[in-house]
């Protein structure tokens, strides 16, 4: 199984990256009935790095993300954050909060991931009270909103009064409020309009540069992967078929499936018939 060893890797921007590993996933398995949704999946994410998991529906990318976050349990394998195993669920408030501070999640649909009855400010306050009961909450809320490009006006708004892009900003702010080591973004820009998607992708790049948070980017969009990740893992039918530095994988795909994914991206002179034929052949 290909393994991304960050110690040897070179950052695509040219700087030698001798960085600590923040997230390490080892030999993850998960079956639903007879279907192997996740089949021996391993990867690592360097501190402050960005790793993309690419695949189509049924590839197991979302199940992998949910196991990493803790919304789904694994049949076998480990999810280590700073070398501590997340998969053994110990009960109790302290463990629950510690787990939340390891990994946070931004969902695909900002219309559904916010409680429709809670204002933006109240949602953030709730999270801050839970994790940082002694902090100066109004100041921190203003800070967080400012960090995602929202103002005080939005703090009093209910989710339905906001646009899709604004809601996704709120969801990001809420995840950042916990100050997690890793942020999992599950198709976090897929539901947004192109122009808004660009704003959010830029925002995410800025936040990573500023805070050194690690991203695990779950997406089907190779353009997005190219734009925001350092490394990429391509999944198909629950297994990793190819992995490596993003620029490398996209420029010189080794696996037929990666090549098919790349060819499927529409562009002028695109030939859907040959792709359909290649898909059937694979």
């Amino acid at each position: 199984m290909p393994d991304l060893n960050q110690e040897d890797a070179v950052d695509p921007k040219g700087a030698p990256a001798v960085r600590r590993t923040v997230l390490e996933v080892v030999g993850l398995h998960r079956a639903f009935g007879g279907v192997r949704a996740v089949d021996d999946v391993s990867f690592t994410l360097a501190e402050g790095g960005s790793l993309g998991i690419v695949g189509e529906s049924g590839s197991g990318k979302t199940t992998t993300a949910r196991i990493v976050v803790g919304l789904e349990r694994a049949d076998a394998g480990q999810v280590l954050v700073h070398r501590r195993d997340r998969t053994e669920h110990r009960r109790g408030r302290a463990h629950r909060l510690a787990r939340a501070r390891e990994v946070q999640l931004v969902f695909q649909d900002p219309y559904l991931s916010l409680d429709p009855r809670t204002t933006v400010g109240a949602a953030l306050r709730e999270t801050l009270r839970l994790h940082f009961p002694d902090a100066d909450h109004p100041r921190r809320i203003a800070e967080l909103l400012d960090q995602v490009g929202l103002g005080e006006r939005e703090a009093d708004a209910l989710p339905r009064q906001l646009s899709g892009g604004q809601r996704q900003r709120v969801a990001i702010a809420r995840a950042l409020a916990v100050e997690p080591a890793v942020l999992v973004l599950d198709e976090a820009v897929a539901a947004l309009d192109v122009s808004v998607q660009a704003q959010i992708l830029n925002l995410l790049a800025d936040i990573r540069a500023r805070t050194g948070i690690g991203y695990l980017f779950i997406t089907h969009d190779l353009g997005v992967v190219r734009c925001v990740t350092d490394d990429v893992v391509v999944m198909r039918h629950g297994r990793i078929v190819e992995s490596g530095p993003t620029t490398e994988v996209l420029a010189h795909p080794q696996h037929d499936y990666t090549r098919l994914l790349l060819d499927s991206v529409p562009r002028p002179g695109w030939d859907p018939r040959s792709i359909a034929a290649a898909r059937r052949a694979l």
Partner: protein
Amino acid sequence: MTILDIQAYRLRLPDTARPVLDGVDLTVRAGETVALVGESGSGKSLTSRSVLGLLPDGATTGGTVRVNGEDVLTMTPERLRDLRTGTAAMVFQDPRAAINPLRRLGDFLTESVRLNGRLAAAAAAERAAEMLDAVGLPAAVLDRYPGQVSGGMLQRVMIAAALMGDPALILADEPTTALDVTTQAEVVALLGDLQERFGTGLLFVTHDLGLAAAISDRVSVMYAGRIVETGPAEDLFDRPRHPYTAALLASTPRLDAPQGRLAAIEGRPPGLREELTGCPFAPRCPIATELCTEQAPALLSIEAEPGRRTACHHSDRTGEGSADA
């Protein structure tokens, strides 16, 4: 032959400050694929739904929407029903939401032709099997339920259903958005094949400029209820003449563009409660001048580039504008 001819189409909804659709011009000829591109709220779906006479409650309209020479806006309910089951058909974005999950796919396919009395039950079933064959599915699918087939197959069933009434025009409203990329290629290839075979006109509504450029003969870009630019797909993609088209291209994460930050369009489209004076894109436009905020630009032909029209006072400057950086 022009199948769809929309001229100066305006649509107004109650409690809004501006028309939702403001002077839309669009034509689709037999065998031609026209892409209508825009972001949510641009009015692209409303335009395509108007072609079938599916208007929101309380809408008032102006202009004409002609299908095969007949104005949809003034049709009697009986004529509209004939139009929807025969001349024009729609393929929706989410086949799972558009197909009744409790009925067999065979019922779904034959329902409309049987209800309007075009075909008897046996003939309808025969035609359904024929159309399934045309979209590359076995006749056994007729006995399946929607839950038993994949999303890509279901969208092909949807296309087969659209073909049942032998339409002259297919309206596809984001037909591949809910599908995987490789499945998208398959559905697009299928639409292209069918169009060649039956000579149907295709209006393809999408938010994806790359997809639009890849599959269509002509592209029209919509913004805030207006068509801001129209022209042959490749030219428009290579040399956008409206700053919005340029900005849309620049903000799409593409595989062939330089890496790094995207050129995002700041701000957001005007809401329906805002009155518009001048160009609707002016507040977000990098090359806007006073003229743009005062006077709405008309959709004018571009000299030296036949078939291209753009609604911009400064279309000559867009090529080197900062939005294309």
